[in-house]
C-alpha cells in the first residue's frame, strides 16, 4: 500500500504543481464549454432576431377584394401587387427568389373570388381554387415569409368559411387536445440514459488519454520509470498507483466539464428562449439508483483508465502510444453509440460484455428498468475486466522486453 500511496501522491503533485497542466485539464474545458455555448447562443439569437426583424418582399398577384379587406383588417401590409400587364413579371420575381431579393410570390387564380363566394345553398357547383405560392426553402427570410403567410391564409380561410356557413364552428367538426401522461422521471431518465454512457466515455477518455500516455509511455521514454523499477516496491503497486491517480484525475476533469455544463447551459438556453428543451431534464434519483450509479461509475472509470494505461504500457514511446490510443478511443465511442439506440432487453449475458454491458446498465438504471442480477452482472464484469488488465500490466512491468525493449 505504501507504494500506491506514494505514487498517487507524486502523480497528483505532478499535475497540480504545474500551472500549464491545471490550465489544460481544468480551466480550459470550462472556458471552452461556456465560451462555445455563449457564442452559439449569441449567434443564434442574432440570427433569429434578424429574421424576425426582416421586412419580407412579397408579391401578391391578382389579390381578390375579399383578401384585400381581410389583409387590412388583419394588419397585413407591405406586400407588392405586381403590374400583371407586363407578361414576364412572374419570371423576374422567380429569379428574385433565387437571388434572395424576393422572399415570397403568391398568385391567386382569376376565378378565386367567385369560387369562394359560392353560397352554402349552391354547394353542388363549388370548385376548389388553387393559390400558387412560390418560395425558396434554402433562404431563411423566404421560409419565414412563407410560414407567416400560411398563418394568414389559414385565418383568411376561416373567415371565408364563416362567411359561407354563417359560423366557422359549424364546419370545424372537432378539435383535438393532447394530454401527456408519463412518469416524468422515467422520461427524463430515458433522455439522460441515451446521452450519459456516451458522455462518460468521451469525458473520461478525453481527460485521461493524454495524461495516461505521459504517465507511463512518457516516463518509459524519459527513463524515469526505470528509476522506480529499481526500488523494492512491488510492480503491482506501481501499476495500481498509476491507475488510481489517473482515475482520480480523469474523474476530476470530467466533473469539471459536467459541472460547468450544468451551470452554463440552462442560463444560456434561457437567453435564447429555449428553456422548453431543458424542462424534460430534471430528474429525481432514488437511493438505490445513486448507489448503483456510483458503483458502476467507479468501475467504468477504472476500466477505461486501465485500457488507456495498458496501451501506454505496451507502446515503446509516447508517439507510438498516442497513435495506438486513437483507434481504441474510436472503438469505445462506437460501442457507446450502439447503446444509444439499442437495448440489452434484460438479457443477462449482454450485461457481461465489457464497455457495452456497463453502458446498457447505466441506461437501465436511469429508466429504472434494471434488475439487481443484471446490475451485478454489469458491475462485476466491469471490475473483473479492469482487474485482469491490471494483472496483465503487472506482468508487462515485470517483462524486460516491454520495459526496456530488451
Amino acid at each position: 500500500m505504501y507504494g500506491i500511496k506514494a505514487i498517487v501522491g507524486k502523480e497528483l503533485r505532478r499535475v497540480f504543481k504545474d500551472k500549464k497542466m491545471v490550465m489544460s485539464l481544468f480551466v480550459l474545458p470550462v472556458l471552452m464549454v461556456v465560451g462555445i455555448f455563449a457564442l452559439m447562443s449569441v449567434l443564434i439569437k442574432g440570427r433569429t432576431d434578424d429574421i424576425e426583424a426582416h421586412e419580407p418582399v412579397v408579391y401578391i398577384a391578382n389579390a381578390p377584394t375579399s383578401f384585400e379587406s381581410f389583409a387590412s383588417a388583419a394588419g397585413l401590409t407591405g406586400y407588392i401587387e405586381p403590374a400583371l400587364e407586363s407578361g414576364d413579371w412572374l419570371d423576374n420575381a422567380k429569379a428574385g427568389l433565387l437571388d434572395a431579393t424576393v422572399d415570397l410570390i403568391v398568385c391567386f387564380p382569376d376565378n378565386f373570388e367567385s369560387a369562394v363566394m359560392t353560397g352554402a345553398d349552391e354547394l353542388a357547383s363549388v370548385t376548389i381554387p388553387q393559390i400558387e405560392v412560390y418560395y425558396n426553402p434554402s433562404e431563411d427570410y423566404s421560409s419565414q415569409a412563407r410560414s407567416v403567410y400560411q398563418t394568414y391564409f389559414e385565418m383568411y380561410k376561416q373567415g371565408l368559411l364563416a362567411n359561407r356557413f354563417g359560423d366557422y364552428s359549424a364546419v370545424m367538426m372537432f378539435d383535438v387536445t393532447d394530454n401527456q401522461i408519463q412518469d416524468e422521471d422515467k422520461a427524463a431518465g430515458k433522455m439522460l440514459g441515451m446521452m450519459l454512457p456516451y458522455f462518460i466515455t468521451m469525458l473520461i477518455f478525453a481527460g485521461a488519454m493524454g495524461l495516461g500516455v505521459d504517465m507511463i509511455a512518457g516516463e518509459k521514454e524519459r527513463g524515469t520509470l526505470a528509476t522506480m523499477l529499481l526500488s523494492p516496491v512491488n510492480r503491482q503497486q506501481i501499476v495500481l498507483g498509476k491507475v488510481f491517480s489517473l482515475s482520480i484525475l480523469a474523474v476530476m476533469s470530467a466533473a469539471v466539464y459536467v459541472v460547468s455544463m450544468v451551470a452554463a447551459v440552462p442560463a444560456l438556453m434561457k437567453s435564447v428562449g429555449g428553456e422548453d428543451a431543458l424542462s424534460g431534464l430534471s430528474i429525481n434519483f432514488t437511493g438505490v439508483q445513486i448507489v448503483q450509479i456510483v458503483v458502476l461509475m467507479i468501475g467504468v472509470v477504472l476500466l477505461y483508465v486501465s485500457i488507456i494505461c495498458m496501451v501506454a504500457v505496451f507502446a515503446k514511446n509516447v508517439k507510438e502510444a498516442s497513435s495506438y490510443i486513437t483507434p481504441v478511443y474510436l472503438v469505445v465511442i462506437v460501442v457507446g453509440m450502439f447503446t444509444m439506440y439499442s437495448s440489452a432487453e434484460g438479457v443477462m449475458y449482454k450485461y457481461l460484455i465489457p464497455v457495452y454491458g456497463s453502458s446498457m446498465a447505466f441506461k437501465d438504471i436511469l429508466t429504472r428498468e434494471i434488475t439487481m442480477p443484471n446490475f451485478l452482472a454489469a458491475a462485476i464484469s466491469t471490475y473483473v475486466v479492469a482487474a485482469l488488465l491490471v494483472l496483465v500490466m503487472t506482468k508487462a512491468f515485470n517483462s524486460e522486453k516491454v520495459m526496456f525493449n530488451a
Partner: protein
Amino acid sequence: MIEINNLTKIYKLSSNQMKKLKTKNSTKVAVDKVSFSAEAGEILGLLGPNGAGKTTTLRCIATLLKPTEGSITVQGHDTVSEPEAVRSSIGFLTNEIKLDPQFSAKYLFHFFGRLHKVPEDVLEERRKELFTYFGIDGFEDKKIEELSTGMKQKAAIAVSLVHDPDIVIFDEPTSGLDIITARSVTDYLLELKKKGKLVIISTHIMSEAEKLCDRLVVIIDGKKTAEGTLENIYEATGTNNLEDAFFELYKENHKEER
C-alpha cells in the same frame, strides 16, 4: 556480497534490429558465461569497450534484466526469485535511468525514500548529509530540469543512495561530468568503500579504474577475459599500465566479425 555464476544473457533481435546490426542471427549474445564475485569493502571495476556487455551485466545484478542462463545472488538473495530483497540492498545508477524533470531533488529524494520504506526522520538526516556532501543543498527545491548536467548527476547519485544500501552499483559514474564533479563522485565512492560497502563500477576510463578499483574484471565481447588486482593483470599481460594491458587483452580476445 555478490556472486555471479555463468551469467549468460541472450537478446532476441527483432527483424528491425537485425537489419540495423546487419546480421542474420536472430539472437545476440550480450554476456557469455561470465562468473565473478565481489566482497564487501572493495571496489570492483568492470572494464571493457562499448558494447562489451558491462551494462547488461550490471542490469542483471540490479534485477532489471533476467539472466538467460546462470544465476546471480546479492547478499544471498537470488535476483530472479527474490528481486525485491535484492533491490532493497542495492543502489543502482546508470545514464539511461533518470530523475523526473518536473520535480525537485528534495521531493524525489523523499519519494524514493518512501518507496524504500526509509523512516521520515532517518530520511531527513540522510538528505542533509548527502545533499551537503554533493553541494545540492542550495538547489534542492529547484526542478531537476533546471539543474546543470553535473548537478543532475549528483542529484541522481544522492537519490540512488537514499536507503543507505550495502551495495552500490554505478554504471559509468563519471561520464559526461567535468573534472571537479567527477572527482567528488570518485571520492565519495572511496568513502563508501571505507564504510565497508561493496561498490561495483563499470568504466572504459583506464585512469579511473587504476585509481579506484581494488580488483578488475575485464569483459570483451561478452566474455570475461581477465580478473584480479591491477598487479595480477599487469603480470598476466606483461605490461606496467592498464591501457597497455587492456590492449593486449583486446588483441588476444577480440575476433573481427567477417
